[in-house]
């Protein structure tokens, strides 16, 4: 695994502190921790209930992983097939090596249409390439239309969860930001707005409807791109996706090259796996499938931007490539004990949680502090692997990445600590001495949690050491049984 940055994303996340540092800050936010706990546990329970309804869930996971593996291992062939079917359906296909190239393509199309705004469907790929910022720099406003994304945008905030990006905000904060910000960018929120979720959703409906009816260009991603039929699929709940995919004259979809599915029939496992894993529903409210331009129905100019941005680099790693199977369901976030406590921002990327901890260092390389620390943002409990609908072995990848980071010399104090530990543990006399040393320390610190052990900074920074006991087991044994 390379240590060089392979993905050229705009530099917003540069300077992001390492995960433990960011996590410490996140852990202090009590409201956020409450929200996250509630959210992750609620979705987790819903998911478990609907997964239990499918007796052959495990076979379904195998089928899903298999479809993605077929596409990924023969990606060159399927991309060419996808391009050919899309073109035959009347779409224009563009290729983008990196974020800058993709952004330039979208900006150019929007400019050619002479628009100063676009409406957007929630899309991880466009967040990854920071398209909104690029459009803004070109004088084009990008309106996020998913309710949570709208909330995040009005706050000038960052998403903290793949599925429910505004989960770190509560209803009162949302009412306040609607009252304060909506008027600046369009139809104001009603003055008597309360913090009832139904009233807030209604305010968003009215605010956005004006934009949907007016917009001439929309930007989307795609959950799946079917190679043999040239069909793109967007899975959503609110109907904002349908609005964007249907009403404007021009539609631009930015699609990661790993979104390809070989055949139409592969939608069968995917459309069973995704909604149940993601929102914990049997099916999400709305799914739109379009195959290029449909005469007299929907956008008459359809563009598809196929985005690499580090993906081909991930693909080259025979173990690491399984991460590209990810369908962005966020099931791994909701079961992760680390994510549940730190939230998404600490991961320093649009991809948080266990999948982010593997995908970011793979996509971006492990040159930065945050990317070096992400593989350690896990207890390796394995819950993410169990929950993953396409069987990505996230713990295996984390261990691989830890190896890569250690080899490049990252986390030196940790490897020094491990070497010291090996030396101590390999000899009973050394261990006894060390343990007596620890109990002395224990008597000195009393009941306080040990947050830092001098000389072991990198290790103990991220881990609170339990107070050492006043007596070791060996000492107790010697005292009680008279021999050691």
């Amino acid at each position: 695994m390379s240590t060089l940055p392979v993905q050229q994303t705009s530099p917003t996340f540069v300077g992001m502190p390492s995960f433990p540092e960011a996590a410490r800050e996140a852990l202090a936010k009590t409201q956020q921790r409450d929200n996250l706990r509630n959210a992750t546990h609620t979705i987790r329970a819903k998911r478990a209930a609907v997964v239990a309804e499918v007796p052959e869930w495990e076979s379904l996971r195998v089928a899903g992983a298999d479809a993605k593996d077929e596409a990924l291992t023969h990606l060159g062939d399927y991309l060419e097939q996808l391009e050919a079917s899309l073109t035959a359906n009347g779409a224009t296909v563009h290729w983008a090596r990196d974020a800058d190239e993709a952004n330039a393509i979208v900006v150019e199309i929007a400019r050619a249409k002479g628009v100063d705004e676009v409406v957007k469907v929630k899309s991880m790929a466009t967040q990854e390439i920071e398209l909104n910022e690029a459009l803004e720099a070109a004088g084009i406003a990008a309106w996020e239309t998913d309710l949570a994304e709208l909330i995040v945008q009005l706050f000038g905030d960052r998403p903290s969860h793949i599925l429910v990006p505004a989960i770190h905000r509560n209803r009162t904060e949302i009412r306040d930001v609607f009252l304060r910000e909506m008027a600046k960018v369009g139809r104001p929120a009603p003055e008597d707005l309360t913090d009832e979720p139904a009233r807030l959703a209604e305010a968003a409906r009215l605010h956005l409807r004006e934009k949907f009816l007016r917009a001439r260009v929309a930007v989307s991603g795609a959950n799946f791109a079917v190679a043999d039929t040239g069909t793109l699929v967007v899975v959503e709940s609110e109907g904002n996706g349908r609005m964007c995919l249907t009403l404007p004259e021009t539609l631009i979809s930015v699609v990661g090259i790993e979104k390809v599915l070989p055949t139409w029939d592969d939608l069968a496992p995917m459309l069973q796996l995704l909604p149940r894993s993601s929102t914990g529903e049997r099916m999400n409210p709305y799914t739109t499938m379009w195959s290029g331009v449909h005469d007299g129905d929907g956008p008459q100019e359809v563009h598809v931007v196929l985005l690499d941005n580090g993906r081909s680099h991930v693909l080259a790693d025979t173990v690491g490539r399984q991460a590209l199977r990810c369908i962005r369901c966020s099931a791994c976030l909701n079961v992760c004990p680390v994510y549940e406590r730190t939230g998404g921002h600490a991961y320093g990327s649009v991809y948080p949680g266990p999948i982010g901890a593997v995908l970011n260092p793979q996509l971006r390389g492990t040159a930065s502090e945050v990317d070096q620390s992400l593989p350690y943002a896990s207890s390796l409990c394995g819950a993410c692997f169990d929950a993953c609908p396409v069987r990505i072995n996230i713990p295996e990848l984390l261990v691989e990445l830890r190896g890569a980071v250690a080899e490049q010399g990252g986390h030196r104090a940790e490897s020094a600590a491990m070497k010291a530990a090996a030396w101590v543990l390999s000899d009973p006399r050394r261990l006894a001495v060390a343990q007596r040393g620890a109990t002395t320390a224990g008597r000195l610190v009393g009941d306080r949690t040990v947050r830092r052990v001098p000389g072991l900074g990198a290790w103990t920074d991220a881990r609170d050491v339990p107070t050492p006991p006043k007596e070791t087991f060996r000492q107790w044994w010697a005292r009680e049984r008279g021999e050691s």
Partner: protein
Amino acid sequence: MSARDEILARVRAATADVTTPVGPRGATPVVEETSPGPGRTLDLFAENVADYRAEVLRVPADEVASVLASALRGRGLGSVVVPSGLDEGWRAALAEVVTVVGEGDAGSAANLDRVDAVVTASAVGIASTGTIVLDHGPDQGRRELTLVPDTHVCVIRADQVVHDVPEAVNRLGGEPHRGRPLTWVSGPSATSDIELQRVEGVHGPRTLVVVLAE
């Protein structure tokens, strides 16, 4: 080198280790549920659609027209847009109680925004998920018809209801659906974005009525 050629070259280099041929895959498990019988499938469909808080009306096929008329009148709706290929009898029954706007006269999306409801047929129903699939054929109309008005009344025939998702995908991959735009609808539009509290009705129709014609 063009971006296209470079990406394809990178991808091919990245998969140089792969020795399996493209296309045929080993034995992939086909995961399909077996219908416990047509009657049970229809019950399950009705149950699951209702579970999304959509209204389900099970009626004999020859009563669809009158049920549609009373469904609209009962909700106090004044206007309805209908696709050009909608059943003539249904359209006539609707015209007796509300203003009917034809698909061709509907005009822009902004005009549709002033229409109260839309009545359509459908393409496929899925029992195990409570889903209606529209393929936007002549009896369902172009996509914006079933998107902009706030109430969608949708008629589905019993023979259009399949048991599970793989069956639906299979049917939709063949004629006459293949290549058409598809909208899968499972209940009214909904969001859980604010404190995870479910709110029905954001941008799509906030009221969904499914008429199951048996």
